[in-house]
Protein backbone atom coordinates (compact mmCIF):
# COMPACT_ATOMS: atom_id res chain seq x y z
CA UNK A 1 0.00 0.00 0.00
CA UNK A 2 2.97 2.29 0.66
CA UNK A 3 3.94 1.94 -2.99
CA UNK A 4 0.45 2.95 -4.12
CA UNK A 5 0.50 6.01 -1.87
CA UNK A 6 3.89 7.05 -3.23
CA UNK A 7 2.61 6.53 -6.77
CA UNK A 8 -0.41 8.73 -6.10
CA UNK A 9 1.66 11.47 -4.50
CA UNK A 10 4.02 11.35 -7.50
CA UNK A 11 0.99 11.71 -9.77
CA UNK A 12 -0.48 14.50 -7.65
CA UNK A 13 2.83 16.32 -8.01
CA UNK A 14 1.65 17.03 -11.56
CA UNK A 15 -1.28 18.93 -10.08
CA UNK A 16 1.13 21.35 -8.43
CA UNK A 17 -0.41 24.23 -10.38
CA UNK A 18 -3.71 23.60 -8.58
CA UNK A 19 -2.20 23.96 -5.10
CA UNK A 20 -1.33 27.70 -5.25
CA UNK A 21 -4.88 28.34 -6.51
CA UNK A 22 -6.33 26.34 -3.60
CA UNK A 23 -4.09 28.22 -1.18
CA UNK A 24 -5.06 31.57 -2.70
CA UNK A 25 -8.77 30.75 -2.45
CA UNK A 26 -8.34 29.59 1.15
CA UNK A 27 -6.71 32.92 2.01
CA UNK A 28 -9.33 34.86 0.06
CA UNK A 29 -12.31 33.15 1.73
CA UNK A 30 -10.66 33.68 5.12
CA UNK A 31 -9.98 37.37 4.46
CA UNK A 32 -13.59 37.77 3.28
CA UNK A 33 -14.73 36.22 6.58
CA UNK A 34 -16.19 33.18 4.78
CA UNK A 35 -14.47 30.91 7.29
CA UNK A 36 -16.86 27.96 6.98
CA UNK A 37 -16.85 28.11 3.20
CA UNK A 38 -13.03 28.00 3.11
CA UNK A 39 -13.07 24.70 5.02
CA UNK A 40 -15.87 23.18 2.93
CA UNK A 41 -14.38 24.30 -0.38
CA UNK A 42 -10.89 23.04 0.36
CA UNK A 43 -12.20 19.80 1.86
CA UNK A 44 -14.19 19.03 -1.29
CA UNK A 45 -11.25 20.01 -3.53
CA UNK A 46 -8.99 17.60 -1.68
CA UNK A 47 -11.54 14.77 -1.86
CA UNK A 48 -11.99 15.26 -5.60
CA UNK A 49 -8.19 15.36 -6.03
CA UNK A 50 -7.77 12.09 -4.09
CA UNK A 51 -10.56 10.23 -5.87
CA UNK A 52 -9.37 11.70 -9.20
CA UNK A 53 -6.12 9.71 -8.99
CA UNK A 54 -8.27 6.77 -10.19
CA UNK A 55 -8.35 8.45 -13.62
CA UNK A 56 -4.55 8.29 -13.87
CA UNK A 57 -4.64 4.57 -13.03
CA UNK A 58 -7.20 4.00 -15.74
CA UNK A 59 -5.32 5.65 -18.63
CA UNK A 60 -3.52 3.36 -21.14
CA UNK A 61 -4.66 0.15 -19.41
CA UNK A 62 -2.89 1.32 -16.27
CA UNK A 63 -4.75 -1.15 -14.07
CA UNK A 64 -3.32 -4.04 -16.06
CA UNK A 65 0.17 -2.92 -15.10
CA UNK A 66 -0.79 -1.93 -11.56
CA UNK A 67 -2.14 -5.37 -10.68
CA UNK A 68 1.00 -7.11 -11.93
CA UNK A 69 2.73 -5.40 -8.99
CA UNK A 70 2.67 -7.02 -5.54
CA UNK A 71 -0.54 -5.34 -4.46
CA UNK A 72 -4.00 -6.83 -4.00
CA UNK A 73 -7.16 -5.23 -5.30
CA UNK A 74 -8.36 -4.93 -1.71
CA UNK A 75 -5.22 -2.91 -0.88
CA UNK A 76 -5.91 -0.67 -3.86
CA UNK A 77 -9.33 0.21 -2.47
CA UNK A 78 -7.93 0.73 1.04
CA UNK A 79 -5.29 3.06 -0.36
CA UNK A 80 -7.88 5.20 -2.16
CA UNK A 81 -9.84 5.65 1.08
CA UNK A 82 -6.63 6.33 3.00
CA UNK A 83 -5.47 8.88 0.43
CA UNK A 84 -8.84 10.66 0.65
CA UNK A 85 -8.42 10.82 4.43
CA UNK A 86 -4.83 12.08 4.24
CA UNK A 87 -5.60 14.81 1.70
CA UNK A 88 -8.70 15.82 3.65
CA UNK A 89 -6.61 16.20 6.82
CA UNK A 90 -4.05 18.27 4.92
CA UNK A 91 -6.86 20.45 3.54
CA UNK A 92 -8.33 21.00 6.98
CA UNK A 93 -4.90 21.81 8.37
CA UNK A 94 -4.27 24.31 5.58
CA UNK A 95 -7.64 26.03 6.17
CA UNK A 96 -7.00 26.04 9.91
CA UNK A 97 -3.56 27.68 9.52
CA UNK A 98 -4.98 30.32 7.13
CA UNK A 99 -7.75 31.15 9.56
CA UNK A 100 -5.40 31.21 12.55
CA UNK A 101 -3.03 33.61 10.76
CA UNK A 102 -5.93 35.82 9.60
CA UNK A 103 -7.48 36.06 13.07
CA UNK A 104 -4.06 36.74 14.66
CA UNK A 105 -3.35 39.55 12.17
CA UNK A 106 -6.85 40.98 12.70
CA UNK A 107 -6.41 40.60 16.48
CA UNK A 108 -9.81 38.90 16.64
CA UNK A 109 -10.44 35.89 18.95
CA UNK A 110 -10.26 32.53 17.17
CA UNK A 111 -13.84 31.22 16.65
CA UNK A 112 -13.04 27.76 18.04
CA UNK A 113 -16.58 26.37 18.42
CA UNK A 114 -17.70 27.58 14.99
CA UNK A 115 -14.55 26.15 13.36
CA UNK A 116 -14.94 22.90 15.27
CA UNK A 117 -18.51 22.43 14.00
CA UNK A 118 -17.48 23.35 10.44
CA UNK A 119 -14.56 20.90 10.44
CA UNK A 120 -16.74 18.06 11.77
CA UNK A 121 -19.44 18.65 9.15
CA UNK A 122 -16.92 19.13 6.33
CA UNK A 123 -15.01 15.96 7.21
CA UNK A 124 -18.30 14.02 7.39
CA UNK A 125 -19.57 15.31 4.03
CA UNK A 126 -16.20 14.75 2.31
CA UNK A 127 -15.79 11.22 3.65
CA UNK A 128 -19.35 10.34 2.62
CA UNK A 129 -18.59 11.75 -0.84
CA UNK A 130 -15.44 9.60 -1.04
CA UNK A 131 -17.44 6.55 0.08
CA UNK A 132 -19.82 7.12 -2.85
CA UNK A 133 -17.29 8.31 -5.44
CA UNK A 134 -14.68 5.56 -5.02
CA UNK A 135 -16.99 2.56 -5.70
CA UNK A 136 -18.80 4.40 -8.49
CA UNK A 137 -15.49 5.18 -10.24
CA UNK A 138 -14.28 1.61 -9.80
CA UNK A 139 -17.49 0.16 -11.18
CA UNK A 140 -18.21 2.60 -14.00
CA UNK A 141 -14.83 4.21 -14.75
CA UNK A 142 -13.92 7.85 -14.42
CA UNK A 143 -16.00 9.26 -17.26
CA UNK A 144 -19.30 7.50 -16.57
CA UNK A 145 -18.52 7.70 -12.86
CA UNK A 146 -18.73 11.49 -12.91
CA UNK A 147 -22.18 11.41 -14.46
CA UNK A 148 -23.40 8.67 -12.13
CA UNK A 149 -22.05 10.57 -9.12
CA UNK A 150 -24.06 13.64 -10.13
CA UNK A 151 -27.16 11.50 -10.68
CA UNK A 152 -26.72 9.83 -7.25
CA UNK A 153 -26.48 13.20 -5.50
CA UNK A 154 -29.39 14.63 -7.49
CA UNK A 155 -31.54 11.63 -6.51
CA UNK A 156 -30.47 11.98 -2.87
CA UNK A 157 -31.41 15.67 -2.92
CA UNK A 158 -34.77 14.88 -4.53
CA UNK A 159 -35.48 12.17 -1.95
CA UNK A 160 -34.68 14.60 0.87
CA UNK A 161 -36.98 17.25 -0.62
CA UNK A 162 -39.71 14.64 -1.07
CA UNK A 163 -39.35 13.46 2.54
CA UNK A 164 -39.53 17.10 3.67
CA UNK A 165 -42.80 17.57 1.78
CA UNK A 166 -44.35 14.32 2.94
CA UNK A 167 -43.60 14.92 6.62
CA UNK A 168 -46.42 16.52 8.61
CA UNK A 169 -46.21 20.26 9.32
CA UNK A 170 -43.98 21.16 12.26
CA UNK A 171 -41.73 18.10 11.87
CA UNK A 172 -38.71 20.23 11.04
CA UNK A 173 -39.12 22.25 14.23
CA UNK A 174 -39.55 19.06 16.25
CA UNK A 175 -36.40 17.59 14.71
CA UNK A 176 -34.47 20.82 15.33
CA UNK A 177 -35.62 20.81 18.94
CA UNK A 178 -34.63 17.15 19.30
CA UNK A 179 -31.09 17.76 17.97
CA UNK A 180 -30.78 20.99 19.98
CA UNK A 181 -31.56 18.96 23.08
CA UNK A 182 -28.63 16.62 22.45
CA UNK A 183 -25.15 17.48 23.65
CA UNK A 184 -22.52 18.30 20.95
CA UNK A 185 -20.55 15.22 21.99
CA UNK A 186 -23.54 12.93 21.33
CA UNK A 187 -24.17 14.64 17.99
CA UNK A 188 -20.55 14.18 16.94
CA UNK A 189 -20.64 10.54 18.05
CA UNK A 190 -23.85 9.86 16.09
CA UNK A 191 -22.35 11.55 13.03
CA UNK A 192 -19.07 9.63 13.42
CA UNK A 193 -20.91 6.29 13.62
CA UNK A 194 -23.00 7.18 10.55
CA UNK A 195 -19.86 8.17 8.58
CA UNK A 196 -17.99 5.01 9.61
CA UNK A 197 -20.95 2.84 8.54
CA UNK A 198 -21.15 4.62 5.17
CA UNK A 199 -17.38 4.29 4.71
CA UNK A 200 -17.54 0.57 5.49
CA UNK A 201 -20.36 0.09 3.00
CA UNK A 202 -18.41 2.08 0.38
CA UNK A 203 -15.29 0.01 1.05
CA UNK A 204 -17.08 -3.35 0.86
CA UNK A 205 -18.92 -2.41 -2.33
CA UNK A 206 -15.65 -1.15 -3.89
CA UNK A 207 -13.83 -4.39 -3.01
CA UNK A 208 -16.68 -6.51 -4.40
CA UNK A 209 -16.74 -4.57 -7.67
CA UNK A 210 -12.97 -4.37 -8.18
CA UNK A 211 -12.52 -8.10 -7.49
CA UNK A 212 -15.07 -8.92 -10.18
CA UNK A 213 -13.28 -6.82 -12.77
CA UNK A 214 -10.94 -8.21 -15.41
CA UNK A 215 -8.05 -6.20 -16.82
Amino acid at each position, binding site marked *: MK*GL*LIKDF*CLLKNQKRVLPIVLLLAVWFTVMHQDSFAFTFIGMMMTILAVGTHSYDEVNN*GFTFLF*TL*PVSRRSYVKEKFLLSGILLCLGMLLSFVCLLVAKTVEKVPFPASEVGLTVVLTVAVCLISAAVLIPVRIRYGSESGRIIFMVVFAVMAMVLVLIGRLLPAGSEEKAAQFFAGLSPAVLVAVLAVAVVVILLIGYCVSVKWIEKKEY
Partner: protein
Amino acid sequence: MLKLEHLKKSYPGFLLDCSLSIEPGQITGIIGPNGAGKSTMFKSILGLVHPDSGSIRLFGKDLRELQDVDRAKLGAALAETGLSGELTVEDAVRILRAFYPAFDEAFFRRKCDELGLPRDKQIKNFSTGMKAKLKVLVAVSHKAQLLILDEPTAGLDVLARDQTLSLLREYMEQDDQRAILISSHISNDLESICDDFYMLNDGRIVFHEDTDKLMSDYAIIKLDEEQLSALDQRYILRRLKENYGYRLLTDQRRYYRENYPNLVVERASMDEFIMLMLKGEAL
Protein backbone atom coordinates in the same frame (compact mmCIF):
# COMPACT_ATOMS: atom_id res chain seq x y z
CA MET B 1 7.84 -23.05 -10.75
CA LEU B 2 4.71 -22.55 -12.87
CA LYS B 3 2.17 -25.22 -13.71
CA LEU B 4 -1.09 -24.73 -15.60
CA GLU B 5 -3.53 -27.63 -15.66
CA HIS B 6 -6.47 -27.32 -18.02
CA LEU B 7 -6.67 -23.63 -17.51
CA LYS B 8 -9.98 -22.69 -19.11
CA LYS B 9 -11.29 -19.27 -19.96
CA SER B 10 -14.08 -18.62 -22.41
CA TYR B 11 -15.23 -15.55 -24.28
CA PRO B 12 -17.93 -15.47 -26.96
CA GLY B 13 -16.49 -17.48 -29.84
CA PHE B 14 -13.27 -18.37 -28.02
CA LEU B 15 -12.16 -20.98 -25.51
CA LEU B 16 -8.73 -21.16 -23.93
CA ASP B 17 -7.89 -24.62 -22.59
CA CYS B 18 -4.21 -25.16 -21.94
CA SER B 19 -1.74 -26.95 -19.72
CA LEU B 20 1.95 -26.20 -19.41
CA SER B 21 4.81 -26.36 -17.00
CA ILE B 22 7.90 -24.21 -16.49
CA GLU B 23 10.89 -25.34 -14.48
CA PRO B 24 13.59 -23.18 -12.86
CA GLY B 25 16.42 -22.23 -15.20
CA GLN B 26 14.18 -22.39 -18.25
CA ILE B 27 13.15 -19.78 -20.82
CA THR B 28 9.90 -20.90 -22.38
CA GLY B 29 8.48 -19.28 -25.47
CA ILE B 30 4.84 -19.09 -26.44
CA ILE B 31 4.20 -18.79 -30.14
CA GLY B 32 0.97 -18.57 -32.04
CA PRO B 33 -1.07 -16.31 -34.30
CA ASN B 34 -2.97 -13.25 -33.12
CA GLY B 35 -6.01 -14.23 -31.10
CA ALA B 36 -4.56 -17.63 -30.18
CA GLY B 37 -5.00 -16.90 -26.48
CA LYS B 38 -1.45 -15.92 -25.45
CA SER B 39 -2.45 -12.71 -23.69
CA THR B 40 -5.42 -14.38 -22.00
CA MET B 41 -3.11 -17.08 -20.71
CA PHE B 42 -0.59 -14.52 -19.42
CA LYS B 43 -3.31 -12.42 -17.80
CA SER B 44 -4.75 -15.52 -16.12
CA ILE B 45 -1.34 -16.35 -14.64
CA LEU B 46 -1.06 -12.80 -13.34
CA GLY B 47 -4.58 -12.86 -11.85
CA LEU B 48 -5.80 -10.11 -14.17
CA VAL B 49 -8.59 -12.25 -15.60
CA HIS B 50 -10.54 -14.92 -13.75
CA PRO B 51 -10.27 -18.43 -15.25
CA ASP B 52 -13.49 -20.45 -15.55
CA SER B 53 -11.78 -23.62 -14.33
CA GLY B 54 -8.48 -25.46 -14.11
CA SER B 55 -5.55 -24.73 -11.85
CA ILE B 56 -2.61 -22.33 -11.84
CA ARG B 57 0.21 -23.15 -9.45
CA LEU B 58 2.96 -20.62 -9.01
CA PHE B 59 5.97 -21.11 -6.71
CA GLY B 60 4.25 -24.26 -5.42
CA LYS B 61 1.05 -22.47 -4.37
CA ASP B 62 -2.37 -22.08 -5.89
CA LEU B 63 -2.62 -18.65 -7.54
CA ARG B 64 -5.45 -17.64 -5.19
CA GLU B 65 -3.23 -18.30 -2.15
CA LEU B 66 -0.43 -16.01 -3.30
CA GLN B 67 0.42 -13.18 -0.95
CA ASP B 68 2.11 -9.88 -1.85
CA VAL B 69 5.45 -11.37 -0.78
CA ASP B 70 5.01 -14.16 -3.39
CA ARG B 71 3.87 -11.73 -6.04
CA ALA B 72 7.05 -9.71 -5.45
CA LYS B 73 8.92 -12.73 -6.87
CA LEU B 74 7.12 -12.17 -10.17
CA GLY B 75 8.13 -9.66 -12.85
CA ALA B 76 5.82 -8.81 -15.71
CA ALA B 77 5.82 -6.74 -18.88
CA LEU B 78 2.61 -6.85 -20.88
CA ALA B 79 1.72 -5.30 -24.22
CA GLU B 80 -0.03 -1.90 -24.26
CA THR B 81 0.42 -1.15 -20.59
CA GLY B 82 3.09 0.06 -18.18
CA LEU B 83 3.90 2.76 -15.67
CA SER B 84 1.70 5.85 -15.93
CA GLY B 85 2.92 8.24 -18.61
CA GLU B 86 2.65 11.07 -16.10
CA LEU B 87 5.51 9.61 -14.04
CA THR B 88 9.25 9.94 -14.55
CA VAL B 89 12.01 7.35 -14.09
CA GLU B 90 12.86 9.02 -10.76
CA ASP B 91 9.24 8.53 -9.67
CA ALA B 92 9.49 4.90 -10.80
CA VAL B 93 12.52 4.42 -8.54
CA ARG B 94 10.57 5.70 -5.50
CA ILE B 95 7.56 3.53 -6.35
CA LEU B 96 9.49 0.33 -7.08
CA ARG B 97 11.58 0.78 -3.92
CA ALA B 98 8.34 0.81 -1.92
CA PHE B 99 6.77 -2.15 -3.74
CA TYR B 100 9.74 -4.51 -3.92
CA PRO B 101 11.97 -5.26 -0.91
CA ALA B 102 14.58 -6.69 -3.31
CA PHE B 103 14.53 -3.74 -5.72
CA ASP B 104 18.10 -3.18 -6.93
CA GLU B 105 18.21 0.59 -7.27
CA ALA B 106 21.88 0.78 -8.28
CA PHE B 107 21.30 -1.78 -11.07
CA PHE B 108 18.15 0.04 -12.21
CA ARG B 109 19.88 3.43 -12.37
CA ARG B 110 22.93 1.99 -14.13
CA LYS B 111 20.77 0.25 -16.72
CA CYS B 112 18.71 3.42 -17.27
CA ASP B 113 21.92 5.21 -18.19
CA GLU B 114 23.11 2.36 -20.42
CA LEU B 115 19.75 2.11 -22.19
CA GLY B 116 19.47 5.88 -22.62
CA LEU B 117 16.39 6.35 -20.45
CA PRO B 118 16.25 9.94 -19.17
CA ARG B 119 15.46 10.19 -15.47
CA ASP B 120 13.45 13.39 -15.28
CA LYS B 121 11.41 13.17 -18.46
CA GLN B 122 7.78 12.06 -18.23
CA ILE B 123 7.34 8.54 -19.59
CA LYS B 124 4.59 9.73 -21.94
CA ASN B 125 7.29 11.64 -23.84
CA PHE B 126 9.47 8.51 -24.28
CA SER B 127 9.80 6.84 -27.68
CA THR B 128 8.19 3.41 -28.22
CA GLY B 129 11.60 1.77 -27.81
CA MET B 130 12.34 3.61 -24.57
CA LYS B 131 8.96 2.65 -23.10
CA ALA B 132 9.50 -1.00 -24.04
CA LYS B 133 13.01 -1.08 -22.54
CA LEU B 134 11.76 0.56 -19.35
CA LYS B 135 8.99 -2.05 -19.02
CA VAL B 136 11.47 -4.91 -19.21
CA LEU B 137 13.91 -3.13 -16.92
CA VAL B 138 11.17 -2.69 -14.30
CA ALA B 139 10.45 -6.43 -14.54
CA VAL B 140 14.08 -7.53 -14.13
CA SER B 141 15.25 -5.08 -11.47
CA HIS B 142 13.79 -6.64 -8.32
CA LYS B 143 15.35 -10.11 -8.42
CA ALA B 144 12.13 -11.79 -9.55
CA GLN B 145 12.12 -15.58 -9.80
CA LEU B 146 9.79 -15.66 -12.81
CA LEU B 147 9.25 -13.18 -15.61
CA ILE B 148 6.05 -13.09 -17.64
CA LEU B 149 6.72 -11.14 -20.82
CA ASP B 150 4.07 -10.62 -23.47
CA GLU B 151 5.55 -9.24 -26.68
CA PRO B 152 8.40 -7.36 -24.98
CA THR B 153 10.15 -6.63 -28.29
CA ALA B 154 7.07 -5.57 -30.30
CA GLY B 155 7.66 -2.43 -32.35
CA LEU B 156 11.35 -2.19 -31.50
CA ASP B 157 14.21 -1.60 -33.93
CA VAL B 158 17.08 -4.11 -34.14
CA LEU B 159 19.24 -2.24 -31.63
CA ALA B 160 16.49 -1.87 -29.04
CA ARG B 161 15.53 -5.54 -29.49
CA ASP B 162 19.10 -6.59 -28.92
CA GLN B 163 19.33 -4.44 -25.76
CA THR B 164 16.09 -5.92 -24.45
CA LEU B 165 17.19 -9.49 -25.12
CA SER B 166 20.57 -8.78 -23.50
CA LEU B 167 18.73 -7.66 -20.37
CA LEU B 168 16.92 -10.99 -20.31
CA ARG B 169 20.10 -13.01 -20.85
CA GLU B 170 21.82 -11.09 -18.06
CA TYR B 171 18.81 -11.69 -15.80
CA MET B 172 19.06 -15.44 -16.36
CA GLU B 173 22.82 -15.54 -15.90
CA GLN B 174 22.55 -14.00 -12.43
CA ASP B 175 20.62 -16.93 -10.93
CA ASP B 176 20.09 -20.41 -12.37
CA GLN B 177 16.81 -20.81 -10.46
CA ARG B 178 15.08 -18.08 -12.45
CA ALA B 179 12.69 -18.66 -15.33
CA ILE B 180 11.01 -16.68 -18.10
CA LEU B 181 7.74 -17.18 -19.96
CA ILE B 182 7.81 -15.06 -23.08
CA SER B 183 5.73 -14.52 -26.19
CA SER B 184 6.82 -12.72 -29.31
CA HIS B 185 5.85 -12.39 -32.93
CA ILE B 186 9.51 -12.02 -33.82
CA SER B 187 10.55 -15.63 -34.04
CA ASN B 188 14.27 -14.87 -34.29
CA ASP B 189 14.13 -13.36 -30.81
CA LEU B 190 12.59 -16.49 -29.37
CA GLU B 191 14.92 -18.81 -31.28
CA SER B 192 17.90 -17.04 -29.77
CA ILE B 193 16.87 -17.18 -26.13
CA CYS B 194 14.24 -19.88 -25.51
CA ASP B 195 14.95 -23.39 -24.24
CA ASP B 196 11.57 -24.71 -25.29
CA PHE B 197 8.40 -23.63 -27.06
CA TYR B 198 4.70 -24.09 -26.76
CA MET B 199 2.57 -23.32 -29.78
CA LEU B 200 -0.88 -22.00 -29.02
CA ASN B 201 -3.61 -22.02 -31.65
CA ASP B 202 -7.33 -21.34 -31.14
CA GLY B 203 -6.85 -21.45 -27.39
CA ARG B 204 -5.12 -24.84 -27.33
CA ILE B 205 -1.51 -25.99 -27.03
CA VAL B 206 -0.88 -27.74 -30.33
CA PHE B 207 2.83 -28.33 -29.99
CA HIS B 208 5.65 -28.40 -27.43
CA GLU B 209 9.31 -28.97 -28.19
CA ASP B 210 12.83 -28.11 -27.02
CA THR B 211 14.52 -25.46 -29.15
CA ASP B 212 17.64 -27.61 -29.65
CA LYS B 213 15.54 -30.47 -30.97
CA LEU B 214 13.54 -28.12 -33.15
CA MET B 215 16.73 -26.71 -34.68
CA SER B 216 18.48 -30.06 -35.12
CA ASP B 217 15.72 -32.51 -36.05
CA TYR B 218 13.01 -30.51 -37.79
CA ALA B 219 13.33 -29.69 -41.47
CA ILE B 220 11.46 -28.36 -44.46
CA ILE B 221 11.39 -30.54 -47.55
CA LYS B 222 10.59 -28.91 -50.87
CA LEU B 223 9.49 -31.24 -53.67
CA ASP B 224 7.20 -31.65 -56.64
CA GLU B 225 4.23 -33.99 -57.14
CA GLU B 226 6.34 -36.83 -58.55
CA GLN B 227 8.92 -36.69 -55.77
CA LEU B 228 6.12 -36.62 -53.21
CA SER B 229 4.57 -39.81 -54.50
CA ALA B 230 7.96 -41.57 -54.14
CA LEU B 231 8.57 -40.24 -50.61
CA ASP B 232 8.28 -42.22 -47.40
CA GLN B 233 5.74 -40.02 -45.59
CA ARG B 234 5.82 -41.78 -42.20
CA TYR B 235 7.78 -38.90 -40.60
CA ILE B 236 6.00 -36.01 -42.30
CA LEU B 237 4.07 -33.85 -39.85
CA ARG B 238 2.53 -31.26 -42.16
CA ARG B 239 2.07 -30.76 -45.91
CA LEU B 240 1.45 -27.47 -47.66
CA LYS B 241 0.65 -27.10 -51.36
CA GLU B 242 2.79 -24.49 -53.10
CA ASN B 243 3.03 -23.17 -56.68
CA TYR B 244 6.06 -25.35 -57.43
CA GLY B 245 4.77 -28.44 -55.63
CA TYR B 246 4.81 -29.09 -51.88
CA ARG B 247 6.48 -27.97 -48.72
CA LEU B 248 6.64 -30.60 -46.00
CA LEU B 249 7.57 -30.43 -42.33
CA THR B 250 9.38 -33.33 -40.72
CA ASP B 251 10.98 -34.02 -37.35
CA GLN B 252 13.39 -36.55 -38.93
CA ARG B 253 15.78 -34.30 -40.86
CA ARG B 254 18.66 -36.76 -40.85
CA TYR B 255 16.49 -39.62 -42.19
CA TYR B 256 15.40 -37.63 -45.23
CA ARG B 257 18.86 -36.14 -45.87
CA GLU B 258 20.46 -39.58 -45.86
CA ASN B 259 17.77 -41.44 -47.80
CA TYR B 260 16.80 -38.72 -50.27
CA PRO B 261 20.06 -36.89 -51.14
CA ASN B 262 18.48 -35.31 -54.23
CA LEU B 263 15.71 -33.58 -52.29
CA VAL B 264 15.93 -30.07 -50.85
CA VAL B 265 15.95 -30.70 -47.09
CA GLU B 266 16.54 -27.47 -45.14
CA ARG B 267 16.62 -26.62 -41.47
CA ALA B 268 13.25 -25.22 -40.48
CA SER B 269 13.37 -21.58 -39.47
CA MET B 270 10.93 -20.65 -36.75
CA ASP B 271 8.74 -18.69 -39.19
CA GLU B 272 8.56 -21.61 -41.62
CA PHE B 273 7.85 -23.99 -38.78
CA ILE B 274 4.97 -21.84 -37.52
CA MET B 275 3.60 -21.41 -41.03
CA LEU B 276 3.64 -25.17 -41.72
CA MET B 277 2.19 -26.06 -38.33
CA LEU B 278 -0.68 -23.61 -38.68
CA LYS B 279 -1.43 -23.68 -42.40
CA GLY B 280 -0.23 -27.15 -43.36
CA GLU B 281 -2.36 -30.24 -43.66
CA ALA B 282 -1.71 -32.76 -40.86
CA LEU B 283 -0.73 -36.23 -42.08
